């Protein structure tokens, strides 16, 4: 039986001759092998420097990409923020809720952190081309903030240290809408909004001073778009203001100034307190002004004049 024709060839054609192997392999593989062999032959310093250069290139490219993304993101942020500011300026009545106030605080603080600090620094180092654009947008946002915060005044009120309330009686009607504790000051900060006129956007922050706990600092933002309540009251009712605090009208509605008022004394005007007020603040001739205003408004009131004339004439007749 001849099995030679049906035998299976089990040889693997293995060849241990390296020359033969190179001939069979594709050309690029051979070259790579030679290259790798040559690389192996090179010094480890060269190899590491090559790797360093490669890594540096990679990181630099990533850096550039990140800078581009950051610039774009900042632009988008500024656009969005400006839109929000415009919207808030156009609709001041709708942003009176405490949550929105908190949000706007967050927005402004985050914007300050971001725009004033790190972005500018990196742009200065890294991408000079984008820095001018961002500077412009940052300037715009800063101008916007200064516009908004132009009408800020701070008033210091002296209060008894035992009195922990943050209520400052400046004559205006305020509605408290929030309170929070800040990091720099352990005493809470209270937020108020003027409730005299619905369209009035003046806000007030009240917080006890860190340096002197007996002093309460009230920061007013904005300008009242209505007369002082005492003036309104004086025109409407003559007898209502007899015990009204004269200092209240001294609080500036818009002027950025600092006034120190002593509230430790009685609220009704007596001699000692009025003297003290005069010493603390030279512009305390307001009681006189108030009296004159009251007199003017009373004399304008025809009914009051008639009643007064009748009373005087009646008294004179009675005496006679």
């Amino acid at each position, binding site marked *: 039986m001849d099995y030679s024709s049906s035998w299976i060839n089990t040889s693997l054609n293995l060849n241990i001759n390296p020359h033969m192997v190179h001939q069979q392999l594709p050309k690029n593989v051979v070259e790579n092998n030679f290259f790798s062999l040559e690389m192996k032959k090179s010094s480890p310093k060269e190899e590491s420097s090559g790797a360093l*250069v490669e890594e540096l290139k990679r990181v630099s490219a990533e850096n550039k990409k*990140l800078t581009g993304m*950051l610039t774009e993101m900042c632009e988008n*942020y500024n656009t*969005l923020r400006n839109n929000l500011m415009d*919207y808030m300026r156009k609709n001041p009545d709708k942003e009176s809720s405490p949550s929105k106030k908190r*949000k706007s605080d967050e927005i402004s603080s*985050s914007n300050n952190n*971001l725009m004033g600090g790190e972005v500018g620094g*990196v742009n200065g180092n890294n991408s000079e081309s984008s820095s001018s654009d961002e500077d412009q947008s940052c300037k715009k946002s800063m101008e916007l903030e200064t516009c908004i915060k132009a009408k800020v005044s701070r008033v210091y009120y002296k209060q008894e240290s035992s009195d922990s309330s943050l209520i400052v009686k400046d004559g205006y009607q305020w509605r408290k809408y929030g309170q929070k504790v800040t990091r720099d000051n352990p005493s809470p900060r209270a937020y108020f909004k003027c409730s005299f006129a619905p369209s009035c956007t003046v806000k007030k922050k009240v917080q006890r001073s860190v340096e002197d706990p007996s002093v309460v600092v009230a920061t007013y933002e904005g300008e009242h778009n209505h007369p002082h309540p005492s003036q309104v009251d004086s025109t409407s009712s003559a007898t209502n203001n007899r015990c009204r605090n004269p200092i209240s009208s001294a609080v500036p509605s818009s002027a950025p100034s600092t006034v120190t008022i002593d509230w430790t004394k009685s609220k009704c005007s007596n001699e000692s307190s009025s003297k003290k007020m005069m010493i603390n603040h030279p512009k305390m001739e307001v009681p006189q002004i108030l009296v004159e205003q009251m007199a003017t408004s009373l004399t304008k009131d025809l009914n009051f004049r008639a009643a007064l004339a009748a009373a005087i004439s009646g008294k004179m007749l009675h005496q006679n």
Partner: protein
Amino acid sequence: KDESMDELEEELRRVTAENKKLVEMLSVVCENYNTLRSHLV
């Protein structure tokens, strides 16, 4: 060669640190942007 290696390493360190800072900043900007956007929406 040692000097150039040192310079390279220094440069790489600097760029890497800058990169890290950029990533952090981008994260902050994104967060702020999203907060602002959520307020508007």
